[in-house]
């Protein structure tokens, strides 16, 4: 009867007035007499069991914070020693992660372990796992399989395994299964492939018939298929050094197999302003094309273009000449007006032979060389040309025109999500949709988050 109090949303069952008043008074008595919030929360849990079902199973933890007044499991008992006696206070579950001074794997695992030790019964483990998932990227452990395994081990083992077909069909312990699915979903979106240990954990926690295990099965079917399908493979993990990245990028862009990647440093040149590294790529064929280039026609330096190496953007420049126009000779094969009579020893006109255009001769220009520099500035490109003149002496005579999109003016700005530091802010934040205000200037993405698969696929 206590469960059907008027606090709950059940409107169909209407207990008689007298019962209602009794229940109400009991509840109010409870509120007045018991002062410590933990006991009150215990009573609330008993009375408001229906609220658990009102959790949106797919909701973000931010919405969970909104209904934290009813969601008692977001509050964690903390023992603080002060003045000789332990004071029990409540802290928000997310603060467990926010409080950590440094953001790395060790502190994340400490936070997980402290939860495991504190509560043997693992109360509120679902909410804890959701807040942990939210903080994984911040702590830099979002691509770490060991951390995901530790997270999955927080689930109490054995309790959620279905024992008959009805439980299987009706998603036994749906909230927990949905939480498990969300953990695997995050793994999938960051391209982390599970292994047989994850399988064991899932079998022991949810059973082989569960939806979580089915999702694991799907991941293990599809992810290996898409892991190595890229025709342009890159090392994993990508090097963080921009010089190495530039070399990788230029090697990837260069189509000619004979391309030589050269590395220079502008410090060797006395009159350069930017003392930076320069990586250039040129093949013998391109050198030949440059030699054949007439001295009076200009050669254009264009840039800066971006090439994405997984999640890193490298800007490069190209040296381009105007496209070579080949005479288009259209022969009408059906023309019978002037047939050579080979049977009377007349020889047909010798046709013009020409070399097949090379890969570098494209319809919008002939690409003569490419480079990437440390600063991507005009001065560094000048240094590049000086270095190129060692191997291409004709460049000393050919006029070089810079047609650059100045990178400093076209900085790409990406707004970064604000940290939700307090409950009040986050409640307001839930209503606002952030506008396109530029909060931080990023000219190249330097964090090491991997590419997500689009649509459930591991994109490597």
């Amino acid at each position, binding site marked *: 009867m206590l469960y059907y109090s008027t606090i709950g949303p059940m409107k169909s069952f209407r207990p008689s007035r007298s019962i209602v008043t009794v229940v109400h008074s009991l509840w109010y008595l409870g509120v007045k007499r018991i002062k410590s919030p933990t006991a009150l929360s215990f009573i609330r849990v008993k009375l408001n069991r229906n609220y658990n079902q009102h959790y*949106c199973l*797919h*909701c*973000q933890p*931010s*919405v969970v914070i909104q209904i934290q007044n009813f969601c008692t499991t977001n509050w964690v008992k903390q023992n603080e020693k002060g003045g000789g006696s332990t004071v029990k206070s409540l802290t928000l579950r997310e603060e467990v992660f926010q409080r950590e001074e440094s953001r790395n794997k060790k502190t994340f695992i400490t936070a997980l372990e402290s939860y495991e030790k504190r509560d043997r019964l693992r109360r509120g483990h679902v909410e804890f796992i959701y807040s942990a998932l939210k903080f994984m990227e911040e702590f830099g452990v979002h691509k770490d399989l060991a951390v995901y395994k530790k997270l999955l081990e927080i689930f109490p083992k054995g309790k959620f395994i279905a024992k008959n077909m009805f439980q299987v*069909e009706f998603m036994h312990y749906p909230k927990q299964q949905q939480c498990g699915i969300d953990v695997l979903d995050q793994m999938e*979106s*960051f391209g982390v492939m599970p292994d047989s240990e994850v399988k064991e954990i899932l079998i022991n926690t949810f059973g082989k018939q569960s939806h979580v295990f*089915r999702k694991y099965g*799907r991941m293990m079917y*599809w992810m290996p*298929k*898409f892991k190595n*399908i*890229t*025709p*342009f493979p890159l090392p994993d993990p990508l090097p963080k050094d921009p010089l190495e990245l530039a070399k990788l*990028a230029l090697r*990837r*862009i260069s*189509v000619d197999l004979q391309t030589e990647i050269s590395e220079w440093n502008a410090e060797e040149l006395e009159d350069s302003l930017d003392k930076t590294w320069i990586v250039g790529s040129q093949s013998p064929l391109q050198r030949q094309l440059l030699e054949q280039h007439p001295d009076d026609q200009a050669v254009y330096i264009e840039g800066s*273009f*971006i*090439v*994405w*190496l*997984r*999640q890193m953007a490298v800007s*490069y420049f*190209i040296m*381009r000449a105007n496209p070579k126009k080949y005479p288009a000779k259209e022969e009408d094969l059906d023309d019978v007006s002037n047939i050579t009579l080979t049977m009377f020893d007349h020889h047909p006109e010798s046709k013009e032979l020409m070399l097949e255009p090379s*890969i*570098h001769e*494209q*319809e*919008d220009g002939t*690409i003569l060389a*490419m480079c990437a520099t440390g600063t991507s500035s005009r001065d560094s490109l000048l240094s590049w040309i000086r270095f190129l003149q060692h191997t291409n002496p004709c460049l000393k005579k050919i006029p070089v025109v810079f047609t650059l999109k100045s990178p400093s003016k076209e900085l*790409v700005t*990406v*707004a970064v*999500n604000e940290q939700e530091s307090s409950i009040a802010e986050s409640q307001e*934040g*839930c*209503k606002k*949709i*952030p506008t*396109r205000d530029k909060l931080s200037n990023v000219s190249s*993405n330097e964090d090491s*988050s*991997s*590419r*997500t*698969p*689009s*649509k*459930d*696929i591991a*994109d490597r």
Partner: protein
Amino acid sequence: MKYGIKELKNEVQLWKEEMSEKFQYDPKVYMPDDSEIVWTFDTKEKLNQWVCTSDSDNKDGFSHCDLTLSKNKKGLFSGFLDCRVPKDGQIKESGYCNIRCLRARKSFKRDSFFDWQMFTHLILRIRGDGRSYMLNLTTTGYFDVMWHDIYNYILFTRGGPYWQVAKIPFSKFFLSSKGRIQDKQDPIPLDKITNIGITCAGKTPGPFQLEIDYIGVHFDGNHTEEFAYEMYNVPSFIVGV
């Protein structure tokens, strides 16, 4: 009214052509290594056959994209991918941009299909920026569960100033619906394709650009693969649920 009459004229013209083709019955025969260019991106009218959408159009995010004519008279699908999630409590991930062609049509605006049964590969001449894009071949069915059937494969781009011809066999396309790979897979029904689309999505925010010269289909005589994924018999209440 005037517009209606003009449209009627066009449709009748199309219908006449269809009828004459039907009575002549001279179908195109393709030999091995034949290609057929289905879409080019030379003019603005051709670009009008494509619809460009992004998550900001669906109030799912903040990316923006455009399909324009580049300097070289090629189609340029470019924009900015923004992975910020709008805070409405329901969206978990965001950031996608898409171009999709209009549905194949017969005369009098009747829905039709692209019939590519003669071909084995999809070819695209593109110049990308190193990102990978998703190719979507929509095969909208008659029944509502099949309305979102899309066959997908990833288009990897090299990046750089050189043009690239991507040749993707139809046997590699896998079935998905509403963004989720389906458990029960089947080879793509090449006579039931309604649209083709290219999506740019992912977790790396930043500008993207894909220059497209043409999209076509190719018949490769040496290609014998029927379907790249297994079609086992699976327990019916576990899989596909």
